[in-house]
């Protein structure tokens, strides 16, 4: 199709402006991670005076980054898997059955999406503190407590998105499975889940990304024992020196796995998101 000149100019301008806007912070992050400390303490430079990879080595010693990493992997992974398992069954029920209480449940799940995190943070913190003082189970400062709080955002989103995705899978497939002798659970496991794979992947990516980047709950519910990366990275600046080069190096290292994962699976993410949202 013929492209008019104004359309071409528009395209070039938009792409150029947005590329600069997008790339500059990432560029600063990457180049600053390769600067010696003196570079980031003086006036800013667009290129390191000497390229060094020392920040990538030193960052593990300034703060216990490795243990934050392990905590983040365990907490985000557990929250993702748990909410995915619960959501698969709940979404299947919502998508395939009409029953009393169905709309109450789905309305509740959907409306909690709009609730501010702060609204849940204060009561959960208080409940956790009081469980500890009456029953003696410690939740504040443990990974278990953090996983429970992360479900507050990952579970409703997973249920909502998967239910939308299951709706898009033709019911004829379930029927065919039943004709072949599968029960409802057999139909779910053998037919619906394999067909919903892109949706499952999208939900898993989203849950993991959100949990990996979560700051609000982590800033209250973590102590030295279960500190995640989101809060741990802030601790570089409370040292006597602000090690900006190490902060940038650490930010880069914790970003790479999720960014690569997201960019590789983004097509699934878009498909799953639009199936869940645009109905």
């Amino acid at each position, binding site marked *: 199709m013929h492209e008019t000149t104004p*359309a071409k100019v528009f*395209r070039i301008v*938009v*792409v150029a402006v947005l*590329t600069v806007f*997008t790339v*500059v*912070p*990432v560029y600063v*992050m990457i180049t600053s991670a390769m600067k010696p400390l003196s570079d980031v303490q003086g*006036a*800013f430079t667009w290129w390191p005076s000497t390229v060094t990879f020392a920040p990538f080595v030193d960052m593990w010693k300034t703060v216990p980054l490795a243990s934050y990493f392990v905590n983040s992997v365990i907490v985000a992974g557990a929250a993702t898997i748990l909410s995915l398992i619960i959501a698969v*069954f*709940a979404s299947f*029920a*919502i998508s*395939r*059955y*009409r*029953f009393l209480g169905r709309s109450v*449940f789905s309305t509740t799940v959907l409306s909690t999406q*709009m*609730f*501010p*995190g*702060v*609204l*849940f943070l204060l*009561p*959960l913190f*208080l*409940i956790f*503190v009081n469980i500890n003082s009456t029953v003696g189970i410690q939740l504040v400062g443990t990974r278990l407590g953090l996983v429970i709080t992360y479900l*507050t955002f990952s*579970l*409703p989103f997973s249920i909502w998105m998967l239910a939308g995705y299951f*709706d898009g899978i033709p019911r004829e497939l*379930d029927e065919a499975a039943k004709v072949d002798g599968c029960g409802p659970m057999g139909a779910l496991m053998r037919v619906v889940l394999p067909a919903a794979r892109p949706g499952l992947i999208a939900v898993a990516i989203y849950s993991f*990304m959100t949990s990996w*980047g979560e*700051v*609000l709950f982590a800033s*209250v519910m973590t102590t030295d024992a279960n500190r995640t990366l*989101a809060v741990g*990275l*802030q601790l570089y*600046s409370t040292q006597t020196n602000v090690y900006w080069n190490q902060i*940038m190096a650490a*930010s*880069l290292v914790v*970003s790479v796995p*999720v*960014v690569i994962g997201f960019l590789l699976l*983004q097509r699934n*993410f*878009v498909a799953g*998101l*639009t199936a869940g*949202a*645009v109905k």
Partner: protein
Amino acid sequence: MTAATATPTSNKPATPGAKKPRRPRPSGWWLPYALLAPAVVFELVIHVIPMFTGIWMSFLKLTKAFIANWGKAPVTGIKNYSVALDFNGAVGAALLQSFLITCAFTVLVVGISWILGMAAAVALQKEFWGRGFIRTLFLVPYALPMYAGIIAWKFMLQKDTGAVNHFIFDNLGIGGDKPFWLIGNNAFAAVVVVAIWRLWPFAFLMLMAGLQSIPHDVYEASAVDGAKPFRQWRSITLPMVRPVNMVLILVMFLWTFNDFNTPFVLFGNAQPPAGDLISFHIYNASFLTWNFGSGAAMSVLLLLFLLLVSGIYLSVLNRRSHRA
């Protein structure tokens, strides 16, 4: 068919089955409940119980002395609410200011993010060399863990060692003193730009998916009729992506209004008044002064406001789509 309740759901309105004579429960009626049970238990634990606890807390004088022993906290009735809404008092005035700043923040961030996302989606609608790469590149801010991107901005916005001041004053050679970006009134501009940087790729992602569902022939037919690109955008693209827009704008509004991460990572505990967004404000009001009752009352007020806005938004849109 074993389970008669297992009638397939569909987008058509449910068959009016309520008035039929009562039938015996078919076998398998419990199955959806069993499937739902774990989710219901977790919803109770993570949402329903905390929410009612939060509402109850908002009527208590829940200060530091009572946090580990909430049963002893005295009931104060609506005092937390009247203090929060007394705009002549210090607490109420600060809350009102934070609320107004958050409103301005939300309008700017959602509006500009939508415009940028739409511009990028339209610019990338047609095939050109390097399109796939550009699209992936645009998604990077959204794919980065929230705090990582914001920390990079925090470094760029430092007064003496940051890239922003270096670019404006050293590279462009504009005279004058380098300003603080994270302290004082500039903090508002800083938090808006950083929030847009993070949010616009999401708008781009959703709008692009919406644009791809528009068939090419519609554009070709309108081009034959002599429609210019802008006219095509207004008369074809915009109406066709309306379902996406409805969800997108509501979701972006809720995320932005509740945004805690951007101010928290950008400012730490030194909250400048100009960047004091409402979630951050409530958090600080609760955890710096350890007055949980007051924090809970403010959260409930925030929730009521969000429910009101979302309710009006959805009912206006639904009425319009019925009329159409």
